[in-house]
């Protein structure tokens, strides 16, 4: 089979809180789009939260990762800490000046802002 059939080196694991607010869903949408653009690969934070072995070990073994929390409650960070996974790159979206609310009509400019911030924190 092809040389690159296994995990390519440098693949960034993207973990979004995907929470129930605009910023939670911004984290999710940015993770989806960055995956589609080939920047990294979104992975299941819920699987890590459930302490499922394959998910936890994957997060421990990946050399490059970014965790994205929508707000300062920090659910994604807490999940990683509970699973004893080091947080390598980390971003909180409200710290970018995006106000947390329940409006799920995500703004294109906010998505672009979040994606740029994720790319920047991974440099």
């Amino acid at each position, binding site marked *: *089979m*092809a*040389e*690159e*059939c*296994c*995990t390519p080196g440098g*693949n960034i*694991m993207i973990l979004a809180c995907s929470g129930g607010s605009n910023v939670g869903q911004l984290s999710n949408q940015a993770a989806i789009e960055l995956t589609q653009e080939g920047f990294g*690969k979104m*992975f*299941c934070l819920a*699987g890590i939260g459930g302490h*499922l*072995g*394959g*998910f*936890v*070990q*994957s*997060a*421990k*073994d*990946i050399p490059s990762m970014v965790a994205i929390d929508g707000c300062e409650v920090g659910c994604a960070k807490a999940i990683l800490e509970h699973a004893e996974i080091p947080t390598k790159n980390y971003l909180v979206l409200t710290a970018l000046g995006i106000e947390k609310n329940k409006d799920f009509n995500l703004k294109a400019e906010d998505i672009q802002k979040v994606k740029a911030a994720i790319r920047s924190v991974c440099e």
Partner: protein
Amino acid sequence: MEIKVLGPGCPKCKQTEQNVKDAVAETGVDATVEKVTDIMEIAGYGVFGTPSVVIDGEVKSVGKIPTKEDVKSWLNK
């Protein structure tokens, strides 16, 4: 002991399988080594990538080639 090496079959997967087989042979542990290439079965383990190594249902490594010494340490636990 049941050992599974997850991976579609690239050189990394093959090297991992070889390291596992060598570790089993050198330690003399009673173990079966199975290569899993079915994508759906691999996905069922929730791993981010391959090659991955699973021992008695526990995922031990993901997305990298474990050394023979790594595998031996898992076999001795």
